[in-house]
Structure formats: C-alpha cells, structure tokens
C-alpha cells in the first residue's frame, strides 16, 4: 500500500547503495577531515605521528608549490570558463538559426566530449610542438617565427596559453549541447513576436535569447567553474604526469595535481587531505558567491 510506511523494506532496498556510500563516500569524507589535522599520515595504513593541529594547513599555505598550483588553477578557471561559455553561447545561437547542415555541425561540435582527454591532450601537445607542430607551421604562413610553446624551457605564459586553448576546446561540447537544449525550450512565439515588432537580430539576442536562456547559462557557468577548479587530467594529457615542460616539472601543476602528488609521497596523507579540503572550501565559497550573483541576474 502506497501510504503505509514501509521502513524495513525501504532500508533493504537502500542497503546496497548505502553500504557502498558509507565505505567510499561518508567515511572517507570524515576521515579526510580527521587526518588533515595529523602529522605524517601514511595513507597506505593510516599510521601517524600524532596530532598536528592546523600545521598541515599552515604549511600548505606557505608552500610555494601550492601557490603555483593555485595560480595555475585560478587562471584556468577564470579564463577558460568564461571564454568557453561565451563562445559556446554564440555557437549554439548561430547553430539554432541555420537550416542546412545543423546536424552535421552539431555532431562535430560534440566530438570533444567523447574523446579521451589524455589521448587528445597528446595530440594537442604535438600541435604545439616547436618544430613539427601544426600551429607554428600555420603561423609560419603569416611570417611568424616558431614559438616554443610547451617544449623544454618554454615560458609559463606560452605553456599556459597552449593549455587554455586545449581547455576551451575540450569544454565547448557539453556547453553547446546544454545551450542547444535550452534554446529548444524557448517558445517560438517570442521570436515570432519579435519579428513582427521588427526587432533587429542583435536586440533579439540580447533582449530575448540571453534573458530566457539565463537559467541555463547560470547553471552551466556554475558547474563549469566547479569542474574547472578540479582540473587535472587535461594537464596530464598535455604535459604528462610531471605536469610541466621538460626540465621544469610541476610548472603547470594544479591544486588537484598537487593532491595526487602528495598521495604518492609517503607520509604526506595529512598534507594531501588538507589541500583537498582547502580546495573544497574555495569551491564552496565560490559557488555560494556565484549563486548569489546569478540569483540577481537570472531572469525569472
């Protein structure tokens, strides 16, 4: 009977999921907070040299690697996400207003989503190769001298540029898809009405499309920011496990990358946990701000 409480039965149905979640989500969450306050935690057996207070946190905040990682991550977050959102927005609106080849374009634009970030990252690395890469070749047609993008001794700015291009490339597909389905949901009547009022295209875009799509834009932006804070695999794809150009490991390291490198170091469990928690807090604070802002900006 629907209305009857079926406690025992419900918990039986939930049991498989809850047991797994307890072991692999709830306990780890609790444990990560715990060990972030302990000294020299060996992850393999969780042995420790005792309580450390907030030492792990203060050490992390003073650590140069962490500062690098935070800078790299922030640049990726604050450059690649807004750019890819804007580009994706233009692409999807453009795509929506053409009649021919819509399906073909849509398929092409989605390809990066079904591509392995490591595999395509390697392809990008070779595109940016100084001597044999495609980009320098093409720029050579316009008389630009070869640039050392990501090779040994490449500057941070160039390596970052290459990484950003790759990040934007990889981030477009999902956003275009979501925006397209959002545009699908906008009542055609609005456009018909605007046409009858002979509103120019630009005004239709700013006065109808953007406001009506704003919940979707806010959603995509927030989730993309959260995702971008966790950037790791794209960097490994392009730069390898060292996360840097050759001779300069960790040049491109990200916060998550740093967590994994500490997981790999013996006795650094507490450090890894404290970085992960700092990242969580940053993401949380940032998401909160974002939601506040979009609450004001998002129409209806």
């Amino acid at each position, binding site marked *: 009977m*629907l209305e009857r409480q079926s406690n025992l*039965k*419900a918990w039986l149905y*939930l*049991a*498989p*999921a809850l047991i*797994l979640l307890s*072991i692999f*989500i*709830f306990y*780890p969450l609790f*444990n990560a907070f715990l060990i972030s306050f302990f000294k020299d935690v060996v992850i*393999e*057996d969780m042995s420790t040299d005792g309580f450390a207070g907030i030492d792990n946190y203060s050490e992390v905040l003073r650590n140069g690697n962490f500062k690098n990682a935070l800078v790299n991550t922030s640049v990726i977050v604050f450059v690649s996400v807004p750019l890819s959102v804007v*580009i994706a927005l233009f*692409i999807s609106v*453009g795509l929506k207003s*053409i009649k021919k080849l819509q399906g073909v*374009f849509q398929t092409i634009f989605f*390809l*990066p989503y*079904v*591509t*392995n970030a*490591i*595999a395509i990252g*390697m*392809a*990008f690395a*070779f*595109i940016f190769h100084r*001597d*044999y*890469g*495609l980009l320098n*070749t093409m720029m050579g047609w316009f008389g630009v001298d070869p640039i050392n993008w990501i090779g*040994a001794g490449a500057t941070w700015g160039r390596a970052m540029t290459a990484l950003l291009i790759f990040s934007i*490339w990889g981030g*477009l597909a999902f956003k275009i*898809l*979501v925006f*397209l*389905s959002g545009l699908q949901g906008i009542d055609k009547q609005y456009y018909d009405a605007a046409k009858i009022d002979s509103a120019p295209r630009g005004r239709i875009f700013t006065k109808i499309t953007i406001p009506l799509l704003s919940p979707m834009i806010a*959603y*995509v932006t927030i989730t993309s920011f*959260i995702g971008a804070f966790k950037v790791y*695999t794209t960097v490994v794809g392009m730069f*390898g496990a060292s996360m840097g150009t*050759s001779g300069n490991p960790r040049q491109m390291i990200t916060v998550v990358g740093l967590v*994994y490198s500490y*997981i790999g170091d013996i006795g650094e*469990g507490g450090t*890894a*946990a404290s970085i*992960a928690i700092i*990242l*969580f807090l940053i*993401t949380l604070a940032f*998401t909160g701000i974002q939601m506040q802002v979009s609450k004001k900006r998002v129409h209806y």
Partner: protein
Amino acid sequence: MNEKDIRKSQIKRTVFNVILYTFLVLVALFVIIPFYWMILTAIKSDFDLVVVPPKLFLKYNEIVFQNFADAFERAPFGRNMLNTLIVAGISTVGTLITTVFAAFAFARLNFKGRDLLFIVLIATMMIPGEIFVITNYSTVARLGWLGGNNIPQVYSQALLAMTLPFMTSVFYIFFLRQSFKRIPDELYFAAKVDGTSDFKYLWRIMVPIAKPTIITITILNAMGTWNAYIWPNLVTDNASFRLVTDGLRNAYSELGGRTIFNEQMAAALIITTPLLITFLLLKKYIMRGVSRSGIKG
C-alpha cells in the same frame, strides 16, 4: 515596403548568413583539426615526422602503419581495452543494481527520514572527489587489493579495486529517481491490483519505462570508465592490469626528450577510435543522454 528596401534586406540576410556559416566552419575546423593531426601523425613514417615544415597531407605511398604495430608492442593496449570493457561492464551492472534499488526506495516507498537522507546524499555531490580518493586509496590498500610488500597485485584484486568504489553513484540515484517519479501513481496502483509485488513492479514496469534513463546511465558510466585516469592509475601497477587511458599515459610518460610522436599518436588513435565509433553509432542516445543528465531532471 518598396523594392529597394526588399533588396536591401535580402542582401543583409545573405551577408549575415555568410558570416554565420564562416564562423561555424571555422569553429568546426578548430574542433576537428586535433583529430586530423592525430590521425595524420599516426600514419607518418619516422622520416616524415621530422620534416620541416611538417607535411599537412600525405600521399598514398607515404602512409605507414608500422606505428600501430610499435604501439601494440610497447604496451598491451589490446589487454587494456579488454580490461576497460570488463571494468565498465562490472561497474555498470553494479551501479545499475544499487541505483535502481535506491532510486526506487526514494521515489516510491515511504519511510522515516527519507527526505533528510536524500538531501544528505545530494549534498555529497558538491564535494570534490579528491577528498574521498585519499581514504579510498588507503581502504583498498588495507584490504590488500594493491598487493603487499613483495606480493604482487593479482588481476581480481585490481578489478575489485577499480570497480567496487564506483558501484554506486549519488548522481545516478538522483537522476533515476527523477525518472521514476514521473511514472504516474496509477500504474503502481494498477500493478498492485493486478497482483504484483513491489519487487516485480520495479523490474517489470518501472525499469522498462525508465529505459531511456538506464541507457543514459549505462552510456555515461561506460564513457566514464573509458576516460578514467586518476583512480585506475593509482590502484594498478602492472601494465597489463591498466585501463586504456592510464595505459596510454604510462606507456609514453618516461621517454624524456625522445620524439616518437607518430607512435604515440597511433596509440592515442587506438584508444580514441572505439569511443568515436560507439558515439557515431549511438549518437542519438549519447547526445540526448548527456544533455538530459546535464540539465538534471
């Protein structure tokens, strides 16, 4: 409107369309070029690889397939693909079972603490996975699944370590619950009157009706496994236990400055192709599924 105005607006429209298509074609090229470059490099000979300026097209007789053979020799990619399929299969089946049961409880059953538990679960979706990884790594290590001192990890342990932590997913529970909720109550009543137990109702009625969502979960999970790098990389040490992605990265990580981009691209192509083919075959389902999951019910 006179003729001149009509002409003017026609011209305006044509110009707009030209600009629009040009823009779309340029973006399409930007998207496709890396794939083209990957394929092109994969079939370049060692000689053509280092020609300056690099060739952007190959003649028929310049194409070589040696790189693929070399790639397979360097790392067990065939084995890695098989592993990936096995891991994807196990974790998908496991995830579906736990998810279907849990989603059913949340969507259909009435129990104490349901709403609170649901909110707690949803809240965990906000937390970056790295926080869990630290302890989960320790958990599988202490279970002995990573092998011990001088005791190598065995295959079944690697499979367990790679699948068990991912046998359920809060997001999929949430996602499936939404689909289950859309099934009208009358159908449940009808099934009750028709003499069905809850368990049978779930598998005979709800699951088939929620098939699109189940397909989506299967696709997302399989794609996730194919692209999984971090966790498999942490918990497997033996090249023949690896999945495709970490197999690829590890195979070409410790080569220093040596340039074997053509072989590397061949390897990348080997592991990219199955996913692309699957995508082209199941395009409709995948795109619909991803967009549905993206909008979150």
